[in-house]
């Protein structure tokens, strides 16, 4: 599960940043990969679609969300938690 989730998120981030998936690592910061605020919103949409979950995120206060976007690894962890919570 973890590997699949991580792989899929790495693919989503790579596609959003228009880079090769091999250049995405868990310690990478989305902004450093070239993902701006619009890119974050689009990536979250892709994650919601891929995992059939609802991600709590308001673009007005990206720092206040419970969804930790500080690194690719934190996104993987947050998605795993949401999948566990929302799919039971």
């Amino acid at each position, binding site marked *: 599960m973890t590997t699949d989730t991580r792989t899929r998120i790495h693919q989503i981030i790579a596609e959003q940043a228009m880079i090769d998936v091999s250049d995405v690592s868990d310690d990478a910061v989305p902004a450093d990969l070239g993902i701006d*605020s*619009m890119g974050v*919103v689009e990536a*979250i*949409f892709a994650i919601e679609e891929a995992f059939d979950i*609802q991600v709590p*995120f*308001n*673009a*007005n*206060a990206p720092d206040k969300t419970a969804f930790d976007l500080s690194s690719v690894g934190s996104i993987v962890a947050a998605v795993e938690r949401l999948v566990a919570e929302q799919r039971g």
Partner: protein
Amino acid sequence: MRRVVITGAGTVNALGRDVPATLAAMRGGVCGIGPLDIRDVDRLAIRIGAQVRDYDESAHFNRQQIALFDRYTQFAVLAAREALAQSGLEVSGDLAARAGVILGTSGGGLNTQDENYRAVYEEGKNRVHPFVVPKLMNNAAAAHLSMEYDLRGPSFTVATACASSNHAIGQAFQFVRAGLADVMVTGGSEAMLCFGGVKAWEGLRVMSRDTCRPFCATRSGMVQGEGAGIFVLESYDHARRRGADILAEVAGMAMTSDAADIVMPSRQGAERAMSGALRDARLNPEDIGYINAHGTGTAANDKTESAAVAHVFGTHADRLAMSSTKSMHGHCIGATGAIELLACIMALRDGVIAPTANWQEPDPECALDIVPNVARDAKVTAVLSNAFAFGGMNAVLALKSV
């Protein structure tokens, strides 16, 4: 160049079905935001809006009109009735050819689109009403005003998202000022509060689920509204000759483009629009007593707009009042500038500055006098009305008392 004045105003919005009711609500700091009453609201994540509630179209229009008037056209027609009645103008004969209508809208007949997409895609119907096209088209409202009031001069619709009304009013102003027309009906209309209209905004993740709190540290985003604001503009001489009651003078305007980002506003674009409007109106920054802010309640707008005002007005920024009435009537998108112009006229004519409602605590990045929660009496002789749209398209109007 000719002086241009406003001699009639009309509106329909969540705060009221006419101008007196709307201004009374603004004076009282009333918030028109509440639970949305629309089809399939349970499938929306955003379930609030500043809706024109308990609206019965059959109370205002007959069957034939309803077949042709989308909700946004209905709002425009109702607001125009009030504006034309107040102006006392009877357009006919030679004047008809010198009169036109320029309206702003963003979604046009979006309810009609939504209903008919639903019919063919969801319900599998293979036939739609024959008037779907003339009902949904973005120039329908302007067309019906032209027909209703015999406006035979230049008429068209402007679509610049959230700045549509200001672009429309600015264009109508320039037509009268330059002598292309003697009378222009102008403003904007929007009815986007339907399932598809809200769902699309939801996707952008900038919408609030609680309420609209512009310039407030606890802001959580924008809230959609709906309605129309319609005005009668005419040359000063024309208005004087016929003894019309002049509500305000449109003194100047400026349009700028950020040429930068499709959604993120630029401080420079906003600054150039405000300083351009001042220049066009031959006003000094110190002349401005009130700014009706774009003030959407999003972090991106409120911080950028506050910084732009501080930069354009310098030390005077601390002395002028600036409020966002979107906190009360919601963000009426293509109609918002027109509805907000009512607050500008109220400041000039009645000496009352509409507040920024729902405000809780200061945001250090919006450190201006934003008239929190309570309306204020003030002597104001010149005002600005800001509109900064997605697409980086900005339009600022400058009004003076006469």
